[in-house]
């Protein structure tokens, strides 16, 4: 079991491409990575309920690091913490990062 990663962003395509690039470099590590980005395949935005689901899916009991871009991603991730189990919440760390390509959609 390892710590899980959740990638939160405004663009689903950009988030999946970022994860694919990372997966190539951490091949076989077994780190669970889930994505909560965009409202759907083409609509930009963040959704706290989707982030809450992604945290639950990435959690193996060792904790989850949530990486998010700016703006509403931070607010949505904070709200997602209100929506998940207390036990899981205690092992979640929120980590805002700036993805250069994402900056203007945040």
């Amino acid at each position: 079991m390892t710590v899980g990663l959740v990638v939160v962003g405004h663009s689903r395509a950009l988030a999946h491409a970022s994860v694919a690039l990372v997966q190539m470099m951490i091949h076989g590590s077994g780190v669970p990575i889930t994505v909560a980005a965009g409202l759907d395949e083409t609509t930009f935005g963040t959704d706290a309920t989707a982030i809450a689901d992604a945290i639950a899916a990435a959690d193996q009991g060792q904790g989850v690091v949530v990486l998010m871009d700016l703006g509403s991603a931070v607010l949505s991730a904070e709200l997602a913490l209100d929506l998940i189990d207390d036990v899981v919440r205690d092992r979640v760390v929120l980590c805002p990062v700036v993805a250069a390509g994402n900056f203007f959609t945040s």
Partner: protein
Amino acid sequence: MYRGMKAVVAKLDEGVAGDLAAVCKQVATTLISSVGGAAGPLYGTLFLRMAPVLGANTAVDATTFAAAPRAGVDGVVARGRAELGDKTMIDALVPAGDALDAALSAGAGLPEALRQAADAAAAGRDATLPLVARKGRASYLGERSAGHLDPGAASSAMLIAAAATAAEGPAS
């Protein structure tokens, strides 16, 4: 917000089973998953925090009702970490909550109290015009944000005006 509220209206038109808390939670989750921008988690928090105050009731008195938006606005303030004068929805929501409480304390009925809240929200919205935004995306514009109404304050004023109109009932 247009997208979010359209989704909420569609959801409510389908009929939401349950008590007032269930309705508030349904409105909140619909906004959270359909708005996309910062208004989603902020208005989502507003309705989520209203839910436990209204609780497992299908009707409440005016005093209990007024406590719900107060809890909601407190939640928005905590979530957004904005202060009055930052040029945000807080600038409409906080004076509206104050006006609602003051009107009810003075003995006004709920429709009248909500109308005064809507008037206070509109005044708060208008007062954002000359301000320089210190929170949210508008803050990226710095001085250039002065001279424009804050969109969050404007949407909040619309929301409270709609509540007042709904409380007044159909025009006779």
